[in-house]
């Protein structure tokens, strides 16, 4: 059914371009106390800056886990930026509830691909978010400028921006995976709460992975989560200490994980749909 409709529909680009612009205007409706709400989320950073000052004073060291005092505070700020790209609030639960209460039908009977539709919608939401968040983020970075090491080289800047783009894709695919599990089990809400705290630690959002014992940190670098927060932040702050081979390897691993997760989502979605049509009413 959906195949025959798709053949009559306008071009794929136009279809998703419309989706994109609708999502943008949807997002701009709720901009009122956005500035206030965004600035508020940076408040814990003030305590974190003081906390790490006290920790460095207590230890007498100039570097902890490879970070200077300033870099440690800057790291805590940089993960806000990576998470602004990689976090997908409500995506997993949204997909799960669409599957559970049958809303998924609205995608199946229309000539759109559900995952692409959600992806484009998210992209639009994120772009509007960055546009609006530029002011508060800029203000906070300006206030924290003394914590940052000198600006990285153009090459590092380039790979930093690329890694943020990939963190968006990896974040989306991971959350979509969790949501699609709803085809098999109904208890996705508690699962997604659980993954939230797991991701918080494993992505390096809570603290830089280097703080962990080296073997554990190395293991975590093999998982996709580090690209959600840790990798872009570390690259930006300490990228000039990274060898070209190391950087190439990390980028390759990141692309590898992205492809793997995209494939996983595709397979889960295809299999889930088969299962859904078998049981759904």
């Amino acid at each position, binding site marked *: 059914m959906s195949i025959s409709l798709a053949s009559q529909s306008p071009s794929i680009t136009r279809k998703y371009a419309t989706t994109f612009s609708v999502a943008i205007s949807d997002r701009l409706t709720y901009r009122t106390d956005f500035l206030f709400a965004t600035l*508020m989320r940076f*408040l*814990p950073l003030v*305590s974190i800056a*003081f906390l790490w000052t*006290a920790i460095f004073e*207590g*230890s007498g060291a100039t570097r902890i886990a490879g970070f200077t005092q300033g870099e440690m505070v800057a790291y805590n700020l940089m993960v806000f930026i990576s998470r602004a790209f990689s976090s997908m609030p409500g995506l997993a639960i949204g997909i799960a509830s669409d599957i559970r209460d049958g809303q998924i039908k609205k995608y199946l009977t229309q000539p759109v691909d559900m995952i692409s539709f959600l992806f484009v919608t998210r992209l639009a939401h994120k772009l509007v978010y960055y546009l609006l968040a530029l002011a508060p983020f800029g203000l906070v970075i300006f206030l924290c400028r003394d914590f940052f090491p000198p600006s990285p080289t153009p090459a590092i800047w380039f790979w930093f921006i690329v890694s943020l783009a990939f963190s968006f894709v990896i974040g989306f695919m991971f959350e979509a995976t969790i949501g699609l599990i709803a085809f098999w089990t109904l208890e996705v809400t508690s699962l997604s*709460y659980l993954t939230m705290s797991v991701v918080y630690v494993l992505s390096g959002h809570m603290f830089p992975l280097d703080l962990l014992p080296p073997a554990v940190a190395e293991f975590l670098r093999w998982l996709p989560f580090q690209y959600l927060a840790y990798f872009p932040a570390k690259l930006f702050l300490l990228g000039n200490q990274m060898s070209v081979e190391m950087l190439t390897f990390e980028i390759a691993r990141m692309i590898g994980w992205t492809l793997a997760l995209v494939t996983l989502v595709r397979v889960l979605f295809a299999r889930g749909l088969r299962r859904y049509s078998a049981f759904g009413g």
Partner: protein
Amino acid sequence: MSESIFVPPSTTRYLKLYACFIRYCFVRELGFRFNFIARSVTGVGWLLLLVFYFDLIFGKTNSIGDWNREEYYFLMGTWFVLYGLVETLFLANCTRFSELVRTGQLDFLLTKPIDAQFLASLERIDWAELPSVLFGLGLTVYATYAGDLPITPSRAVGFLLLIGCGVAILYSFMISLASISVWIVRTQSLHELWFYIVQFGRYPSEIYGEGGLGIGIRFVMLYLIPVMLAINVPARFAVKVIDPWMVAYMVFIACLLLFASRRFFYFSLDRYRSASS
């Protein structure tokens, strides 16, 4: 008007009623057992993570401010107990109050023959947060033994009483925030802001240092919005040198805030205009 409305308030009546709330909420939770367990486990899981984080930090340093590892754990335990109690007893009620104002359902609460503040602040008990309180208590006990902290029975009693004062301080602010919803209908961001402000208080007050910003934060959080007072003073009382003036001040401020927030609550009720039907 039926006679029952004019029954004089008696303590036993209120206690009996509160026992009913406790039972009712517990039964409610048991209706969704899996959800209850999942929430309890996630709640304690977050706290475990925090302890783990500071365990890593104390692998790199011996002290934060003038707090060593075990003393710091004691402070964290104090924070978990305090905030856990507030979440168990009051948080759901205070957020619900804003909702009652918005929908006009507050009318039904006001017409009941019982103290409005009692009903508005205590009707819901969030049992899933209780494990966090127990975890916090366990952490303070562990820290006491592991660090050989100088806690005597009298200090322990004082500590618990001061925790009570701390809960009173946090509660007073929360019920006042909820009261504001009579004027501002959407107070979601206000509640969120409050959450972030409380976060300032969970660290030792010493870390804020002697710089201008640090002194400013400490002054505000100790005297104007005394969340730092609420968390730091009980822990200091238990494990550090006792500062009698700070303790006296905390008891005083807790009583003052309870009184002031009650006045403010009733002041806001006077301005409540219900929702048009």
